[in-house]
Structure formats: structure tokens, C-alpha cells
């Protein structure tokens, strides 16, 4: 099967399979949100303190909140077909603009933390598998279990106390130094400095997952015949470990990485709040509190697309790792 055909299959499967899933989520959440007491106008009125029943009714009519639910859903889906995510009463801006403006910083956080988690996690797993049962394995296994048991936001807070409050090495919040008009290299350095602690907090749990998974997968594969053959050919243990065992172990790891991508935004919501990082997760939490449901739906839809995209990449990566795997 050539490359073009393979990618074509993935795209077709995505369209047939994943898009209805995303649409299902939107419709399910839409009805779920109708059960939540209060709407955006209630929250706005409560905050302004000077709203009359007439102005509230006017606002509801303006945002279409007075219409029957089914009609609201119909309008929402109609807008969606035109790539319009609706309007946010809270921020007084189109949801698409809001979501797009927050996307880069969340994407930076997610990709950096997944990258860090995969590199550190797999390295730890390789070391643990190589010394299985001996003290480096026991020590690292305990460390991995400890990371697995620790909430990321708490690691973030403790790191904040140490590195930001006591040592004053790193900034304590935000994603850039306010007021500093930096450009180019200095700007990137500033952004990365701000990202260190949130990335640490968000990646800790995933480091543990990848490390444990790598260890288990490598030990499983190390007992197979082709590994014995590779050893018998006289290949060095390092080559066998990295080129033969690790390559096979990457298959389950990529599957799990794709599976966890959906949860990443939930974790990011908490971490973004701790570090006042202007991202999508925090936007979603604020949207729930402000009853600004268009924004919440927009964030969820975007996150569903990210998950779908991640799974497509995992599929392609797996068929590259193991050519026997046919793209479904």
C-alpha cells in the first residue's frame, strides 16, 4: 500500500467515524447544559447588580437564549456548518476569536508537556527494564509510582514555593513578562521560562504512565524469539534494546499517548488556573462559572478535534513503526 493510499484511508475513516463522534459530543453537552441552573444573562445581571427584568429579557432575546431549546440547537448546528461557533455574551466577542486567541498558549503547554513526558518517561522505562529487579529499577519504580500518585497541581504549587518564592529562579504565573516588549530570541526565552513550572506540573503524571508502560512492554517483548535471534546474531545489547525491543514497545506507548490526549485538556484546566496561564482549559472553567455555554461548547469541540487529530497521527505513526499494521 503506498503512502497516498494510506493517508487517504485514514482521512476517510476520520470523516466517517470521528466527525460523528465530535458532533455527538456537542449535542450531548448541549442538552446536558440545559440542566445547569441559570444562564449567562443571570450571571451578567448578578454581577452588574442593576439589571431589571426588562433588560434581562432584552439581553436574552439578543443572544437567542429565549428560544426553545431545540431551535437553539438547530441554530447552533447551522452556525457550526458555517464554521461559526456562536457569540459569547460574557466576553462580548465571537467564540471563534476567543478560542483561536487562547489556542497557541494551550497547545504550547500540551505539546511541551507531552514531549517532556514521552522523552523522560521512555528513558526511565528503558533504564528500569534494563535493570529489572535490581536497585535502579526498584528506586525508579517507586519514584514513578509516587509521581503517578501525586496530583499535578500540588507538584506545581510545591515547585512554585521552591523555585519561585524561595529561590526566585522562575516566574510564578502568566505566560510572558507583562510590559516587557520583547522580540525574537528574548521573547522565546521569556516564554519558555514561564512555561517551565506549568510543563513540569502537567507532565509529571504522564512521565509516570509512560515509564511504567515502557518497562512493562519492554520486559514482555524481551522474552520473544526475535530478540534471542538478534542477540545470537552478535548484536550489542544496546542495539538490541534500542532498535529491536524499544521499537516494538513504542506501539503500546503511542496507543496510550493518543488515548490520554483527551484528558490532557482537563489536566491543563487545573494547571492553567494555578499558574494563571491564559489557555483553553481555564477558559472552559470560566465559561462554566459564567454559564457562557457557547464558549464551553467551542472549547470542547476544538479539544475533540485535537483528540481526533492526535489519533490520526498515532495511526500513521504505528503503521510506520510496524508496516504489518494496516491502517484501519
Amino acid at each position, binding site marked *: 500500500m503506498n503512502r497516498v493510499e494510506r493517508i487517504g484511508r485514514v482521512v476517510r475513516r476520520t470523516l466517517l467515524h470521528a466527525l*460523528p*463522534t*465530535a458532533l*455527538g*459530543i456537542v449535542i*450531548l*453537552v448541549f442538552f*446536558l*447544559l440545559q*440542566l*445547569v*441552573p441559570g444562564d449567562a444573562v443571570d450571571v451578567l445581571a448578578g454581577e452588574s447588580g442593576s439589571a431589571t427584568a426588562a433588560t434581562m429579557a432584552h439581553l436574552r432575546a439578543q443572544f437567542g437564549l429565549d428560544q426553545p431549546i431545540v431551535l437553539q440547537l438547530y441554530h447552533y448546528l447551522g452556525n457550526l456548518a458555517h464554521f461559526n461557533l456562536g457569540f459569547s455574551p460574557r466576553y462580548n466577542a465571537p467564540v471563534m476569536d476567543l478560542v483561536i486567541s487562547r489556542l497557541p498558549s494551550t497547545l504550547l503547554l500540551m505539546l511541551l508537556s507531552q514531549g517532556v513526558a514521552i522523552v523522560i518517561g521512555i528513558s526511565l522505562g528503558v533504564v528500569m527494564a534494563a535493570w*529489572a*529487579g535490581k536497585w535502579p529499577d526498584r528506586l525508579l519504580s*517507586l519514584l514513578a*509510582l*509516587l509521581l*503517578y*500518585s*501525586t*496530583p499535578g*497541581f*500540588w507538584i506545581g*504549587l*510545591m515547585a*512554585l*514555593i521552591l523555585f519561585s*518564592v524561595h529561590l526566585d529562579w522562575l516566574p510564578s504565573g502568566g505566560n510572558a513578562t507583562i510590559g516587557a516588549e520583547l522580540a525574537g530570541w528574548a521573547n522565546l526565552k521569556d516564554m519558555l521560562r514561564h512555561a517551565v513550572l506549568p510543563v513540569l506540573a502537567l507532565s509529571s503524571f504522564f512521565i509516570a504512565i509512560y515509564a511504567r508502560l515502557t518497562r*512493562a512492554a519492554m*520486559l*514482555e517483548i524481551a*522474552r520473544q524469539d526475535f530478540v534471542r535471534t538478534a542477540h545470537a546474531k552478535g548484536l550489542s545489547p544496546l542495539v538490541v534494546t534500542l532498535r529491536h525491543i524499544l521499537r516494538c514497545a513504542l506501539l503500546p506507548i503511542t496507543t496510550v499517548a493518543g*488515548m490520554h490526549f*483527551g*484528558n*490532557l*485538556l*482537563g*489536566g491543563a*484546566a*487545573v494547571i492553567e*488556573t*494555578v499558574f494563571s496561564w491564559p489557555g483553553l*482549559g481555564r477558559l*472552559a*472553567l470560566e465559561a*462554566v462559572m459564567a454559564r457562557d455555554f457557547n464558549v*464551553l461548547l467551542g472549547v*470542547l469541540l476544538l*479539544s*475533540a478535534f485535537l*483528540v*481526533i487529530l492526535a489519533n490520526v497521527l498515532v495511526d500513521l505513526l504505528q503503521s510506520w513503526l510496524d508496516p504489518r499494521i494496516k491502517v484501519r
Partner: protein
Amino acid sequence: MTHSAPDNPRHNTMTPDSNSATFSPRPPAFRLSAQLRAFLRNPAGMAGLLLLLAVLLMALLAPFIYPGDPLDMVAQPFLWPGANPEFPLGTDSLGRNVAAGIVHGSQVSLQIGLSAAVVSLLIGTLMGALAGYFGGIVDDVLVHITEMFQTFPTFLLVVVLVAIGQPSVTLISLAIGVASWPTIARLVRAEFRSLRESDFVLAARSQGFSNVRIIFQEMLPNALPSIIVTTSVMVASAILIESALSFLGFGDPNRVSWGSMIGEGRESLRTAWYLAALPGTALVLTVLSLNLVGDALNDALNPRLRSRDA
């Protein structure tokens, strides 16, 4: 009327089932004790179990150790740990006893952890069993629903569900359970798909057992070991989700929880870092104990994996 099940690894052919029309899928006693012994031999698992029992004891004895509402103001605020022997872990920004909060907080964590795990076990087992047993269009539909829930960020779903009513321990448990069942469903589905082909299920079918009976009496007990192992992980992750929820202020306002203590401690992180550090330590130790027990159970119930670690 003899139907032995030679392919069923948990079914010992030596059990006298010749005079009964039904199988007893329960493993014979000596098998269980071997697993129990494997568990007891595991020092990490035993340490986890002892730690877990200590937390459980703390939760049960909380009303006796620190009677009264842990949310009451009892002393001057910001008393550091060790400064006053009456309040060994100090007091928070409102003069509440931190030690009392930690002891009472164990109740919320364990309550929510256990009941959320039960909810997700019920939904997940049912969904997974139906999908794995029937296959075909039932499987397609249920797998689609499972995937939908997995595409959804679990934590945000919990936040939305909790926003529907007044945040209470019951509602939070339900929300976490409803948001996290896909893990169980995937596992049970995989188990049932492989069990479906085994001889003892065929034998049960040929005896004319109903689907309900085959699913719950024949197949479920065989899928139980992996479900048990996953349950401890589910309890641990439910406790973590609850802590994040109450850390952000979405928790039950009438109950003290470790997450809410960390959240309030965050306000005075620069001056009194112990307020966030102490409840967090209790949280980590509790979740760690569950994961240690889970790992040991996994080693004991899946001997194939056990030999691998040796």
C-alpha cells in the same frame, strides 16, 4: 449432565461438579490462598495495605479524635506547625485546626473514591459486558458511545455535571463515576470478547442458559481478577479528580476536603506554605497506598506478569 470446562483456567477439573447441572466458576480454595500468599509476600503491597488501613482508621475515628466541626475557628490564625502542642499541625488563615481538617478530610476522599469507583464499575461492567458478549451492532453502538466519552476531557465533564446541582459528596461521586467508566468498559469488553470463544461458555449456551445468566454467573466471575485490579486504580484516580475539583472550589462547601485545604492554602502560599503542603502529603500517601495495593494485586492475580518481574 457433566460439562467440565478444560479451557477455563480458573476452573479446576478436579472440582466435583458432576452432579450439578451448573458450573461453579469460583476458583477452588487453594488457588485463592496461593494468590493471597503471593500478595502477602509482596513487601510493597503490604506497606500499601497498612497505609490504606491507617487512612481508613483515621476516617472512621475522625469524630472521636477531633470531635466537632473541623471548619470551626479554634485558635489564632497562621499558627505554624509545632508552635502550639495543642495544634500539632498549626492553624490556617481562619484559625481552623489543620490536623482536624486532615483527619476529617480523609472521610471525603475515601467516601468519594469508593462510591465513584462503584458507579463507574456498574456502568462500565454493564457496557463492556454487553458489547463484548453480543458483538455486532450492539458492540458498534456501545463502542461509539465509549469513544465519545473518551474524547471528552474527563475533568471538564465532571465540572459540568457538578454544576447541574448543589455540589455535595453524593453528586460529586456520581459525576466522577459517570465520567470515568470508559476505562472499565474497555477492559471488560476485551475480557468478554476472549471469554466468549471459550468452551465453558459454549457449554453453558448448549445447556440453554439465558444470556443474562451466562454473562453474570459464568463470564463475569472469570473477568473479575482484572476488574479488581482496575478498581484500586479507579478509586485512586477518583480521589485525585475530587482533590482537583475541590482545589478549584467546585467541591462540597460543607465538608472539609484535602483538595479544598490545598486550594485555601494557595492564597497564603508565600507566607504559610505548610497549609498547602500538609494536606497534599496526606493526599499523596493515600493515593500511593491504593496504587501500591493495586500493583501487588496485579502481580498476585496475573501470575504471568509476576514471573516476568522475577
